[in-house]
């Protein structure tokens, strides 16, 4: 028995998405004027319409990117540089004021830190409450009349804590401050809606919702000035040059459409399953569920645990040996485990374990994970061997990388 409980990292692609991907991979260049090019362009524009419908925006707001990280970078750097360009024209070369939170994904955190390090941004970082949520008032208190951008994630990728972006967005819209919402993690189970959130920019990634890796969407509301990051042929309204990846773009739209259509049902199903998972380990010594207590403030897909007295490296090995794929923290470039900035911002120092569910998750997987954790955690805490839990999958790991 295996359990894939790392959907927050990536989800298996839906078969219908793979069909679309394969259908459009051999497409012509969508910018070519000839008929095959027109066919390809039609596929891109249909994808744009479908993505817009799924995200509560208009087709003109949709820019396809290589994924969530590029979408975040495009929104943040694009808006900051456009604001600086405008202010420089008025003789103001001061760094622009940006408000964000301490629990953002690295794609936002590091992009803004880089801008701040270069002296382009004066950064205000809002700490979360102990449950990992960012209080709307805490964010709005930092906003000034000259604030150029506010960036708050819809829900945190580690804890699944949901932020009240609708309240923040309404206030910012009234004050005329651009608002970016990293929606990569919440798109699977939360009703992401540019209009309802009064957001000006969203970032979404296809592979979190049954789409392929390597494609995402930056929603950039028309009227918000954005400087491009990549210059070239001027595709996608000049904001994102590069040959349209027709297959990936069409597959992304297919994944978005299906994910949104099935979202309410998936949310209800995953809520039950994640509750079942959390309840199954709730009585274990040294295991604490982190994140908001109110289910409405928690992604249905996430169970985030803090394990006391458990070594993260040992935990990873034990879970692999027992066939459970889950995240025991992020990895640095070498692949070594490293501490979680989100946990640190929440004032927690235990070993994190994120179990995240998705469209393929079954009750059997949940029960397997519960059985493994009930066996492994006490052993890990007491220093007993964990390679032989009696639950180990029989199959030897297959050679990866396609090697001989």
């Amino acid at each position: 028995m295996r359990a894939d409980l790392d959907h927050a990292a990536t989800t298996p692609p839906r078969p219908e998405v793979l069909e679309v991907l394969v259908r459009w991979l051999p497409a012509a260049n969508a910018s070519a004027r000839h008929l095959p090019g027109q066919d390809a362009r039609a596929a891109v524009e249909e994808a744009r319409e479908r993505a817009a419908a799924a995200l509560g925006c208009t087709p003109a707001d949709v820019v396809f990117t290589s994924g969530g990280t590029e979408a975040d970078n495009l929104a943040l750097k694009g808006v900051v540089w456009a604001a600086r360009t405008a202010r420089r024209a008025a003789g103001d070369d001061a760094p622009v004021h940006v408000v964000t939170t301490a629990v953002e994904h690295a794609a936002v955190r590091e992009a803004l830190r880089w801008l701040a390090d270069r002296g382009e941004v004066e950064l205000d970082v809002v700490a979360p409450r102990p449950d990992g949520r960012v209080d709307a008032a805490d964010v709005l208190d930092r906003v000034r009349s000259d604030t150029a951008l506010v960036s708050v994630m819809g829900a945190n990728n580690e804890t699944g804590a949901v932020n009240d972006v609708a309240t923040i967005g309404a206030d910012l819209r009234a004050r005329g401050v651009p608002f970016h919402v990293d929606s990569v993690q919440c798109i699977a189970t939360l009703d992401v809606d540019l209009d309802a959130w009064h957001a000006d920019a969203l970032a979404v990634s296809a592979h979190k919702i049954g789409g392929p890796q390597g494609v995402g969407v930056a929603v950039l509301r028309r009227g918000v000035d954005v400087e491009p990051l990549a210059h070239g042929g001027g595709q996608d309204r000049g904001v994102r040059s590069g040959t349209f990846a027709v297959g990936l773009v069409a597959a992304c739209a297919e994944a978005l459409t299906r994910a949104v259509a099935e979202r309410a049902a998936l949310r209800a199903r995953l809520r039950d399953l994640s509750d079942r998972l959390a309840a199954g380990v709730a009585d274990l010594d040294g295991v604490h569920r982190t994140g908001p207590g109110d289910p409405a403030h928690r992604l249905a897909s996430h169970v985030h645990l803090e394990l006391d007295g458990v070594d993260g490296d040992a935990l990873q090995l034990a879970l692999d040996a027992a066939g459970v794929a889950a995240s025991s923290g992020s990895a640095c470039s070498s692949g070594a485990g490293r501490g979680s900035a989100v946990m640190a911002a929440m004032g927690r120092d235990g070993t994190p374990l994120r179990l995240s569910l998705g469209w393929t998750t079954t009750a059997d997987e949940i029960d397997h994970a519960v059985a493994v954790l009930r066996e492994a955690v006490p052993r890990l805490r007491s220093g007993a061997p964990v390679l032989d839990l009696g639950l180990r999958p029989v199959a030897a790991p297959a050679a990866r990388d396609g090697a001989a």
Partner: protein
Amino acid sequence: MARVLVALSGGVDSAVAAALLVEAGHDVTGVHLRLADVPAAAVGHGCCGLDDAQDARRTAGVLGIPFYVWDLGDVFRREVEDAFVAGSAAGTTPNPCITCNERVKYAEVLARARTLGFDALATGHHARLRRDGRPVTTPGPGAVLVRAADRAKDQSYVLHVATPAQLAATLLPVGELTKAEVRARAAALGLRVATKPDSYELCFVPDGDTSGWLDDRLGSAPGPVVDLEGREVGRHDGVWRTTVGQRRGLGLAGHERRFVVDVDAARRTVVVGPRDALACGWVEVAAPTWAVAAPPRPGDRVRVQLRAHGAAHPAVVVPGGPGVAGPRLALDAPAHGVALGQAAVLYDAADTVCLGGGPVTAAERPAGLPLAVAGA
């Protein structure tokens, strides 16, 4: 079949070690140890760079074994780098690779592996294990450490810190092969590290400038360079920049060949003299560790190796000086250039089985010049 954790440095030896274990039917898991905090841009061939982690990961991928990176940076800094800095500041010549094997690979990684349920830790060191005279292929008691098949690559010297219990949970698969055979195996397996150059530098000093690395941590502590009569003949910037036996780089005027014969950190003094003043008739090891169940006793004839690829000096074991628990090794013929802190590693009289050893804590000088006490 045993559950074996193999330490993949990113080099060819550990890659082939892992491959041999897989071929032998063991249940193998690879781990890359992130030890020194070297800049990501450093293109080193040590064991700590990002490239090495990538090479290790690729090896595991080709072999189809699980692979993890363990960050042991804190323990490495504390036990190896800090100890190296302290030892160097004290005017001794510690071997950080030995410290790393003792305090990191055996004390930390092997212990962790055993706790998790692995039967053994394997590395790509060139050294052999023998049980009842036969090559060791599965972990278990009774293993003794023996020099490598490739004598020129033998690394038993840096493994002498292993205890019999640790050797019982150790596998050294490449020790039976020559380096050329290791590279040929790697090439045959399609491992891209087959032609990767050997590493010679300290892994935490990627540019190879050990003195500069120590300067960064110790600053400047200038002092006199004196001759055997105590006359100042030059200046130095820090005793860690010199080591006993060194001849070059002293910046001394005059044409006679002069060697560093003593380093007195307490007085910041470096003593130079003719080669004869380096001659050393005995060394003492106050706190040895033994790799064999029955340590050598006074009267036993042994071989003593004093540097990583140095000669194995014939010697006889005699009791240590007053108040010294460890043995003194009386060398048949004097050795030249013995520095305190470097490891004296004992082998049996046939120069085959590694018995153990430890840092030199005292050594004789015929010139009547006692070496400074380690750590003073």
